[in-house]
């Protein structure tokens, strides 16, 4: 019997704007359906998160104010996090959590909220907000679909998670979405991200299992419903936004 995979959901009390609960649930279920076990730890803002205790960490999205609190909390153990990421700690960061990975997030008034500086990346608040359905193409996991809603424009010098097929992506200009660095996955895509992107969910899980030293190769699951949801999304929603784009 393998030991359970330890998954940490960081600060669900502050960062749970776009149903990050769904991402955790997806990771948990997809392990269970293969006879594996997940041990999910909800780390609240009053607790100290120790990167060494986990095999996979999820950092979700929150409002600007809440993000600031999280940033302040996490920066106290910044060096520890930096070392863990360099060492290959699997980290999934969505929306606000994604922005926190960079050097800073510049607010509309010019104030720079310092990030964790784990990546060579900056985010600057812009207008209008970039909102809508989004689809990107990733080398590792094929097409990734979901919804984006962010004011920040993010630029970095790492590989993106994928190239934008439809939607805005990191900044609406360079055609990139998200970030991939070592075992870090950063993205603006929620909806939530993982239920409709089982290939990505499994890729992240496999990465985490390998990192944890759990000797398992994930077998494919019957993802009929997941595939149907992806197809429906691409047919109904991507076409619809093309029509919408043509209407003045």
């Amino acid at each position, binding site marked *: 019997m393998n030991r359970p995979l330890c998954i940490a959901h960081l600060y669900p009390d502050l960062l749970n704007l776009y149903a990050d609960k769904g991402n955790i649930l997806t990771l948990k279920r997809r392990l269970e359906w293969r006879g594996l076990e997940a041990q999910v730890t909800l780390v609240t803002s009053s607790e100290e998160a120790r990167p060494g205790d986990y095999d996979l960490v999820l950092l979700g999205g929150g409002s600007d104010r809440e993000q600031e609190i999280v940033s302040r909390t996490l920066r106290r153990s910044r060096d520890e996090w930096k070392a863990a990421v360099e060492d290959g700690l699997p980290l999934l960061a969505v929306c606000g959590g994604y922005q926190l990975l960079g050097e800073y997030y510049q607010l509309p008034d010019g104030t720079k909220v310092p990030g964790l500086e784990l990546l060579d990346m900056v985010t600057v608040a812009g207008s209008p907000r970039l909102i809508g359905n989004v689809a990107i193409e990733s080398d590792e996991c094929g097409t990734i679909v979901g919804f984006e809603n962010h004011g920040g424009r993010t630029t970095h010098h790492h590989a993106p998670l994928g190239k934008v097929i439809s939607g805005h992506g990191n900044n609406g200009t360079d055609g990139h979405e998200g970030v991939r660095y070592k075992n870090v996955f950063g993205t603006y895509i929620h909806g939530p991200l993982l239920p409709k992107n089982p290939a990505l969910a499994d890729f992240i899980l496999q990465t985490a299992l390998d990192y944890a030293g759990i000797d398992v190769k994930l077998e494919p699951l019957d993802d009929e419903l997941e595939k149907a*949801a992806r197809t429906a999304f691409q047919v109904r929603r991507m076409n619809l936004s093309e029509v919408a784009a043509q209407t003045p």
Partner: protein
Amino acid sequence: MFGVWIGKLVLLLLSMLRKRATSLPGKIALKVSPRLLRKLGTQLERCIVVTGTNGKTTTARLLAAAMKQEDPIIHNTEGANLPQGLATALLRHTSWFGRLRRKTALFEIDEATLPLVAETLPIKVAVVTNVFRDQLDRYGELDTTVEKLLAGLRKTDAVAILNADDPLARHIGLSYGKTVLYFGMSKEHLKQEHRDQMRDGAFCMQCGHELQYDGFYYGQLGDYHCPNCDFFRPVPDFVGHFQESRLEVTQGQLPPVSFQLPVRGIFNVYNALSAIAAARVCGLDASVIQQGLRQYQPPLGRMQAFPTRPHTVLNLIKNPTGCDSVLQAIHSEPGDKVLCIAINDLAADGKDVSWLWDADFELITEDDSVVKCVTTGLRAEDMALRLKYGGYPESNLSYVPELEAGLDHALELARASGDVPVYVLSTYTALYPLADLLKRRAHNNEPAAMYRPSVS
């Protein structure tokens, strides 16, 4: 007199501007003439009031629907239940000479307002639906509410109609000292299981001892007694027994009378039971009450029942909090059921459907009584995925994106499962199309005598 003029003038002005006037005319009139309520109130022959924590509006509207069958009444329909709301309702039926044109008033009154207005109105019947705690004023407020209700009642000679299943209402009944009639559910509906709902008034108001329950209906409503003193649930004068959309009411030794309910949900069954009890006390006979209930228009998509085959209940869902209370209500409904969940993602629904993952659908995926689930709408597959990851068995789950086909599939499955009711949950833009479809299916079904008042 001046107050009446001012009030009527404001009323006229607002109606010319096509503004809803439920409080403002009364508020201004009361400022000018503080004794206005008494002046108009004394012209009434009788006044019936509905008060309590939850269900005032529905109860009052159900009762109004029945009473209107006999006589035109004055009623604060929009739930404007403070003094200015009552004054506005009265002004609407007052002539420029200050004469009231209707003689019966039915008022929904806020608990705290009751003692303020009780002396000014000829209150003959007073219904207290229940005494629950509001989320916000969690501590210490409950006793105050009970005291206010008592203070209000004591200023009247009304027949008090109280909830036998509510220990707090029973306390009011014991302390009132005048005529009290009780309504309550049949003991067959008692449940042993209770999820972690708050139990208000779980302590005996007479001696302070913890109450013991031989079963619960919902919340603190149940079959209670105090192990320390002689405080216990009274035998109700009106006993309700419900099955799907029918409520059978037994009044004393009289034969039971069965009513077709236009609303669903156990809390609405209580509302209907108290309204029927009050209507009986007001002297209405069963066929008149049934006729009134038939004409009752529930707000669209709030546990709205349709007499389709099998029965359907339509609910609007639009955010996690509202969705959770709907799921809670469905979960508390006894018996097997089929769910049909319609999710659209148009502008009026919100284009981002991630909220589905924040809502507590686990409440129904863990509920064995939900035998089948059909998802429909533009995001049918997303909803199905939510249920799958929530732990609902895929073999009982199907998705049919097209609304009409989805609804019909759910009805088909419900028929095949032994005519179990279908609970339809829908986001905004699918609600009206679904209501139309349900109306049409209910219409085709009319020969099945859904509406015939049965007196058995």
